[in-house]
């Protein structure tokens, strides 16, 4: 419903780069889900199945989590987080320290694992790799397409979302390893057929096995996302940084909670913007020096690594200083 709580685009001062933890729920052994909301309760940026967000935690770590909620609910995101004792502390932080009411930094959503059109889908998920697949299953249902899911995990109690998946009956095969052994990929995939797309997400050995099992299928059948707790480069900074505007010869300090766009405007340099969510591309700005902290939904990993442009409506800086062609 429309109402007073509706946020306006183009308004300075609203920090769009954070979300508030609204709920934290244990859903399986070692797995919690987080429900995230905008601090003012407004709409969050739109997303598509397969998308992930970058969450910047208080301890300075940035972690990527697939969105596994309902995109028809514009005011909340859901992510699932597996406790990984061998990890570098992101999941432990989420499990042990993060509580409802806490605010975390947000990047994206971005989608490197989009659902391409197909006549039918075969989904294979291992462990927490189920998260991006959940909205894909919903999508396949909406399109009334033929689909099946093979879902593996160590044991039943560690496998999240079994209750939600139960609604789909036979389409979903739940195969805990302690009951069934390794997943029978070839049996599940069956004979190669054109028009089918196979989506796999889970631990590396599973995806390698899936690549082998799809060898006889038409090219571009298989789409995978490596579900490693992706470690990002430099930790995100929580301290101010400087932005030098090369052409106008001015330098501004950007404080946490202020967007680069607003800081630049404060210095009297106008950059055209529109969505203020890192989705439309209007505010694209050339970076001459420094390492941007990309929070947009537009650049892929390669383009990010090039570090030659940024979207200052949402993106920030990893380095002490950014030099922009403004």
């Amino acid at each position, binding site marked *: 419903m*429309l109402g007073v709580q509706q946020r306006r685009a183009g308004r300075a001062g609203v920090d769009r780069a954070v979300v508030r933890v609204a709920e934290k729920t244990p859903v399986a052994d070692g797995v919690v889900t987080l429900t995230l909301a905008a601090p003012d309760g407004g709409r969050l940026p739109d997303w598509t199945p397969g998308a992930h967000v970058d969450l910047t935690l208080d301890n300075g770590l940035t972690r990527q989590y697939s969105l596994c909620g309902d995109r028809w609910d514009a005011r909340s995101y859901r992510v699932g987080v597996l406790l990984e004792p061998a990890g570098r502390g992101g999941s432990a932080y989420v499990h042990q320290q993060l509580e409802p009411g806490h605010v975390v930094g947000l990047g994206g959503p971005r989608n490197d694992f989009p*659902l391409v059109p197909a006549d039918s889908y075969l989904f294979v998920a291992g462990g927490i790799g189920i998260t991006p697949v959940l909205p894909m299953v919903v*999508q396949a249902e909406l399109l009334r397409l033929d689909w099946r899911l093979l879902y593996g995990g160590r044991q039943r109690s560690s496998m999240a979302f079994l209750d939600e998946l139960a609604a789909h009956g036979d389409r979903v095969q739940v195969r805990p390893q302690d009951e069934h052994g390794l997943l029978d990929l070839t049996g599940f995939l069956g004979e190669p057929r054109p028009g089918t797309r196979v989506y796999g997400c889970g631990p590396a050995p599973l995806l390698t096995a899936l690549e082998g099992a799809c060898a006889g299928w038409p090219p571009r059948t298989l789409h995978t996302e490596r579900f490693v707790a992706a470690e990002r480069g430099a930790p995100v900074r929580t301290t101010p940084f400087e932005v030098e505007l090369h052409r106008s010869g001015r330098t501004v300090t950007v404080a946490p909670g202020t967007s680069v766009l607003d800081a630049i405007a404060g210095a009297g340099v106008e950059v055209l913007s529109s969505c203020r969510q890192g989705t439309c591309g209007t505010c694209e700005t050339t970076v001459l020096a420094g390492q941007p902290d990309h929070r947009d939904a537009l650049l892929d990993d390669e383009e990010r690594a090039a570090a030659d442009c940024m979207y200052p409506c949402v993106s920030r800086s990893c380095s002490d200083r950014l030099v922009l062609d403004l």
Partner: protein
Amino acid sequence: MTRTTSPTAGLPVSDADPFGHEVLEDPLPLHEQLREAGPVTWLSRYDVHALARYEEVHAALVDWQQFQSAAGVSLSNFRTEEPWRPPSLLLEADPPRHDAPRRVLTSVLGPRALRQLRERWAADAEELVDQVLAEGTEFDAVPALSQAFPLRVFPDAVGLGPDGRENLLPYGDHAFNAFGPSNDLVARGAPRVAELSGWVGEQCRRESLAEGGFGAAIWAAADRGDLTPQQAPLVVRSLLTAGVDTTVHGISAVLYAFATNPAQWARLRADPSLARVAFDEAIRWESPVQTFFRTTTTAVRIGDTVVPEGHKILMFLAAANRDPRRWTDPDAFDLGRDPSGHVGFGMGLHQCVGQHVARLEAESVLTALARRVARIELAGPTRRHHNNTLRAWDSLPMAVQLA
């Protein structure tokens, strides 16, 4: 039967015809009337609810969940009426069907993809401006610049062949008329619909599209499996429908704005980097795309009114772009203003995917013109072009003083 009393007690009613010639000639009085009547008004003539304030228009644009596009962004409701052509896979689609075509076009028409066109278009604009000025310092800016430049660069960028390009403007004009009621404007376009649609359909085939263009890039996406081969031609069609008339009228809008605001032209000449802001300010000020419809997917509360499910909502982008609640001195064309956040390109999921193309075209023309021309003014009576969706000019006689 059309109702004459409001469906909800207290809801403001208007019997104005937003698609009648009087309003199309000058829509500003109706826009103000609707904005001031309340957050939502019922248009008795068409039984639709109209939004004219920035806040409500913006909210409806971004809320694709409650305001859908797949039932048509036209007065016609595709749930009950047959569309005049197969619906657009972008403009007239909702998630999830909207996702794949949108993803492909976002990358094909994104700012990074356009970098390779920047220099060529700048040179093309200089060449065109030199040609026009060589013939004299008085000209009709609509054919000489507004139409000539997009028609020179855009069909090449898409990869169209040389023949039949004169079909693009009439096809687009009809498509934008068809979003409105089936009035005299639609009837006027009807006799050529089959012929023009046939030509456009031909151009969308893989074989018709030159290598290196947007069209070929869309087909390459189909080869990668990001689209189906059935989707590809319709995605190409969306460029041919939405990408020509819009930029023509956008360029006219900014030229008219400068011709009637000489101080702003002086400002642009002093700082040519204002060309981008100038174009977006003109899009805000004139709103070449005036209106689009949505259809409610549920009962939606707007202000004190609950609009039932399945109803058509008419969003006045143009009225929102001059809402004094959002903009200071909204009727002024002012390069000192930050026009960011205007809804002239829409907002949200369906926001114009060609906006970077439009900006690059306009920036090229303005930069070339600012280099050669010290003053621009109107040199005779101007003539509007009426269209159910577009705010357009047929004729803009101008006189320029060379720098």
